[in-house]
């Protein structure tokens, strides 16, 4: 049955699959939803997405957009180094990234107007400003909704765990990410996919049978779509735990030591490696939430602590994807909720600065060796080719073959996947 007032606010252009997707929240069976998704998703099965999110707000001046000619309070502690593309310099914190700029593009002229972590993150990850009545779904949740799952794996995984902003919002918790846990831990095993210590598979099976017998009794007297959907998830949970493929996908120890070293033995390093491993196994979108960028005090050690391991992981990822022929089909995004004040504060730190920041994009047809836009000499504002958060979202969705104009029905009205943005065509020049 349809959500009651849904029909009223639908745009006539809305396509059926959105309807089916939304209707599922009101009562369509999950099975039919999944079927629908796998049919519709098959067109774009070849594309996947990896998001590296620098939570806390990375300093653009200390990374992608150095200002070597500015005064010391702006220039900061880090030298600018040449990249593989003549005339373009990055900060010395990003040597591996600099060497591989031919494989990706950087937008230096991003801007936002939100300086509060939670809502700014949500803005960048969802491409839509915070509203009073609705939480707009994160990119990963929209992709999970549009693409569905494959190979029996969850479509959207957050590594090591979800941030407050990576959730499904009004799409419903069905589209929240599956959380991997930290793959850099010794004896890492994925959350909730492992039997308790000492329990044999036989015992687990017998226990499940007992559970089924109890549920059958209840199901004889009760009947509800909710119970049907719970059944389907139970079945899925059971399949995942007993599926060697799922365990294998998360089993990062199967990667060679050499490769693990290349990514770096850090949370972000192993996290990015796990992201690649999952994408290769059938997960459609993996988001690595990397924290620690919020350097209000002592910017120098703070920046080194996060950007050096990030740089190593990002460089390794580009090589690895390319070697496996996955770069063409995988969109890699390096995002941050905002930049940091170009001028260093009196505690040797940098504060929140949404007026300008940088992002990087690779794969899925994005041209390499490219810098889009520039900032003013002090780095405070976009100078050439300002790119809004909405522009970025529209570009990302189009690149992934999803029409940002598609509407969901939420909060009693039609809501576009991403609105008010213009495609950044330079990324494909």
């Amino acid at each position, binding site marked *: 049955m349809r959500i009651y007032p849904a029909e009223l606010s639908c745009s006539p252009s809305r396509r059926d699959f959105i309807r089916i997707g939304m209707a599922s929240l009101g009562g369509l069976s999950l099975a039919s939803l999944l079927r629908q998704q796998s049919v519709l998703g098959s067109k774009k099965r070849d594309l996947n997405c990896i998001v590296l999110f620098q939570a806390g707000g990375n300093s653009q001046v200390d990374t992608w957009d150095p200002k070597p000619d500015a005064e010391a309070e702006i220039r900061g502690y880090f030298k600018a180094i040449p990249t593989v593309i003549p005339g373009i310099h990055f900060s010395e914190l990003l040597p591996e990234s600099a060497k591989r700029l031919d494989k990706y593009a950087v937008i230096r002229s991003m801007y936002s107007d939100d300086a509060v972590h939670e809502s700014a993150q949500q803005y960048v990850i969802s491409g839509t400003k915070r509203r009073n009545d609705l939480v707009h779904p994160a990119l990963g949740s929209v992709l999970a909704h549009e693409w569905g799952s494959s190979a029996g794996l969850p479509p959207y995984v957050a590594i090591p765990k979800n941030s407050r902003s990576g959730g499904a919002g009004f799409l419903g918790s069905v589209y929240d990410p599956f959380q991997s846990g930290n793959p850099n831990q010794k004896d890492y095993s994925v959350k909730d996919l492992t039997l308790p210590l000492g329990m044999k598979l036989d015992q687990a099976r017998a226990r499940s049978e007992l559970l089924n017998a*109890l549920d059958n009794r209840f199901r004889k007297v*009760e009947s509800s779509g909710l119970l049907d959907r719970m059944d389907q998830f139970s079945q899925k949970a*059971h399949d*995942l735990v007993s599926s060697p493929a799922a365990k294998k996908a998360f089993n990062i120890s199967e990667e060679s030591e050499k490769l693990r070293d290349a990514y770096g033995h850090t949370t972000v390093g192993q996290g990015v490696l796990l992201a690649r491993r999952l994408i290769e196994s059938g997960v459609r979108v993996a988001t690595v939430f990397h924290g620690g960028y919020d350097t209000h005090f002592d910017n120098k050690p703070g920046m080194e602590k996060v950007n050096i391991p990030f740089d190593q992981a990002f460089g390794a990822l580009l090589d690895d994807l390319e070697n496996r022929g996955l770069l063409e089909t995988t969109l890699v995004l390096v995002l941050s909720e905002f930049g940091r004040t170009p001028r260093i504060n009196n505690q040797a730190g940098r504060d929140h600065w949404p007026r300008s920041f940088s992002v990087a994009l690779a794969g899925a047809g994005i041209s390499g060796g490219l810098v889009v836009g520039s900032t003013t000499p002090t780095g405070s504002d976009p100078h050439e080719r300002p790119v809004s958060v909405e522009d970025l979202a529209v570009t990302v969705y189009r690149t992934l073959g999803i029409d940002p104009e598609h509407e969901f029905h939420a909060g009693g009205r039609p809501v576009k996947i991403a609105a008010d943005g213009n495609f950044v065509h330079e990324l494909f020049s």
Partner: protein
Amino acid sequence: MTLNLRTAKMTVAGRGDIPVPLFNADPESAGGLLGNLGIAVRILSLSCLIGLPGQALALPSAAAETRGETAKPETAATDVPQAASEPGPNFLPDPAAGLKRIVLEPAELVLAHPGATQRLVVTGYYSDGTSHDVSLFCRYVSSAPQVVSVSSDGVLRALTPGRAEVEAWLGEARSGLQARVSDQITEVSINFSQDLLSIFTQRSCNTPTCHGAITGQAGFKLSLFGYDPEADFQMIVEADEGRRVDLEDPEKSLLLMKPTFSVPHGGGKRLTLESAEYETIAGWLKQGARYNSDGPRVTGIAIYPRERIMLGLGTTQRWVVLGRLSDGTTRDMTGEVKYQVGNDSVVQVTPEGESKAVGRGQTHVMVRAMGRVAVARVGVLDEPPMADYPPLSAHNFVDEAMIRQWKELNLVPSEICSDEEFLRRVYLDVIGLLPTVEESERFLADTRADKRAALIDELLERDEYAIYWTTKLGDSFRVHQTNIPSRAQGLFKRFIRTFLRDDRPYDEFVQEILTSTGDQTRNPAAMFWSPMSNTVLDITNVNQVTTTVSRLFLGIRMECVECHNHPLENLTQDDFFDLSAFFGQLRQKRGYETYRRVWWLDPKSHFVHPRTKKPLQPRIPFEPDFPVRANGDYRKDLAAWITSPENPFFARSIVNRIWREYFNQGIVEPYDDFRTTNPPSNEALLDGLARHLIDNGFRLKPVHRAILNSATYQRTSSPNPLNKLDDPRLFTRYNIRILPAEAMLDALSQVTGVEHSFNVSPKGTRAQEVIYPDYAGYFLSIFGYPERLSLEERPKEPTLSQALHMRFGDTVMDKVQSDENVVAKLLESGKSDHEIYDHVFMSAYSRRATDREWDLASNYVASMGSQGVERKQILDDILWTVINSQEFLVNH
């Protein structure tokens, strides 16, 4: 206190008064936001209507025939067509059999000029409670055939100026209407700012990605969602030498050729030549493409019949829509409106307004045109009403309203549930906790006849009632660290909890919140404003305040009108600004510590209209005559209006919210989206609850008590053979739902006997009481503990993460495998396996294990024991199984 709503009047900006017919409907004038109020009253009093005296049909049919025949037989009276002899979807072997009365509609017509026509509809009401479209079976008789004639299929035609009465006859039944034919030749004047802009908005022409973009699109720019009608008019009529309109040949105007794709259009085809919108634009051009026109305007539309109980799938209904014009005339708009239906698994409707019954249940057919809306309720019966409808006893007014509706729709609710089911349900619903084993045993052993009522009273007096319902209000007030500084959160929660515990009047509570100022650690009510403000920049987002207040206390969503006029309701962006102006003086500053935020009123500041940039005097859009002081704390006047017993929204929105917590579905659903186009499923029920609240001085506990004591609440969730597929909004059984996050975690701790450790609260703190739910952890978050960043509802759907975490996650395993869990304690006290099953079942399900369950558990224990698994571990498995079973995970 008594409810006096008969005189309540509300006005929607610039559209004149709209009486609010709450209990004594005058549906003729219903329209706009409040139109539904009247309609459903009419529907629910159907049974009264049928039984009304004065319908004895005293007029001998012969007299009428004589009168008709002596006049002008060929136009005045027509024979009954022979449709009845051919079985079809509308087959009625004998339309007069069992007929109680017929109603001819519309009842009053003022036709603008000779030549004007009006479609009529006749509804037959039958003794079994069903109704039928009998328009084609009637004979129509005009008292003055030279003034109006009626064709055999019910189309009235104006012939000459004058007055006439028209009667429809079916067997002995008769119904009449008054028609007047005016001699003024008028046509409906089409207004640019209302009629045309609503089309541009509805067809997405003025969105940010089309012509509403800052720079326009392809040289043609419209204001975003039509916020600047004058600029749009100038752009269309005057800009570029007027190339977009052709007054000589209106249909050759670019304004029509582009959207119909008669010439290439980057935005594709937006209109068809047959659409009502095309007609409207063409009509406007024909009238000279003026900005303001002084001709008559459509002031309201009505749909007939306003309710219909259709018997048999495939049965059809033809709707008639009447427009009322500002010059007092009426107009047939049947073919000019857009038809939509709420639930198309019950009724489907064609663009021409022909409806067909396709499934059992109830829904609404809605029509809109020229920014006006009207709604008709439709019930569908797939079988004739049962002659032996089971006797249902009503405990109170809740049941009376429900039983009336069920009988009318031929629905049979589930049985009253067992004591076990009631016990577990009422604990979880009222206090968010499972009954303990001792509490369950005491209640089940109690033999008093009124033990359910006694338990309800007892639970409502427990502190846990206030604690649990604080979590629900906490969702509404968005109590969360992101929104409210953490050290102040506890104070706000205590403020809400005290209100609930003491059952202070809800109107007082809301007044206190809406007029609050000061240091929010001293006046916790002032914490209300925090989530709507930016505490980093010290900015209060007045728009968010307006949308939050209207949604929480009126159940009206104004988010749409924040940016553009409402596409479905008669609410405008200016209404939104008028309401926002009440909060124009509200300011905040930091206290001497960051968590001490201080709210104050700046008498010098005003809300500034975003377009005119002029200070705006506040005005209540729903009742513009409501007095508002010229200066001072405007919020006091708003609070007085909102909480007035005469305000039809205030009481209804809170009782609907409470109802929805108990039934998992509001009477209006979504529960905070009251509008004409989203009518309540049972108007009498909603009114009854609202009246009960007001009669009890706005105290909430009497409302809880009325709901909980009703037979409706106490019905089993288990379906009977008839109601398995009933719409959950018809409440023929209790709606199963997953336990809310806090209740789930607390139940888990209680059944396993292992308290949960939150890293911010002392051990033993229950999930409902955690001071900083922000740190509540993975378990609560996957079970839908809301982030409270917005006013969104909690997710209600199961997820894979839940299934995995319940089975294998550390939250559950830590309890199930604990050496101090309930199994360990029972083993220590020397209990047998069977005693342990009994305890676990009673604790988790509030019932004893069945023989079959005993056998299943015993077999498992024996089988594992023979494999050498430890007894504690085997019994832990039983515990694991019980807490993973659906019966535990849901409230039923």
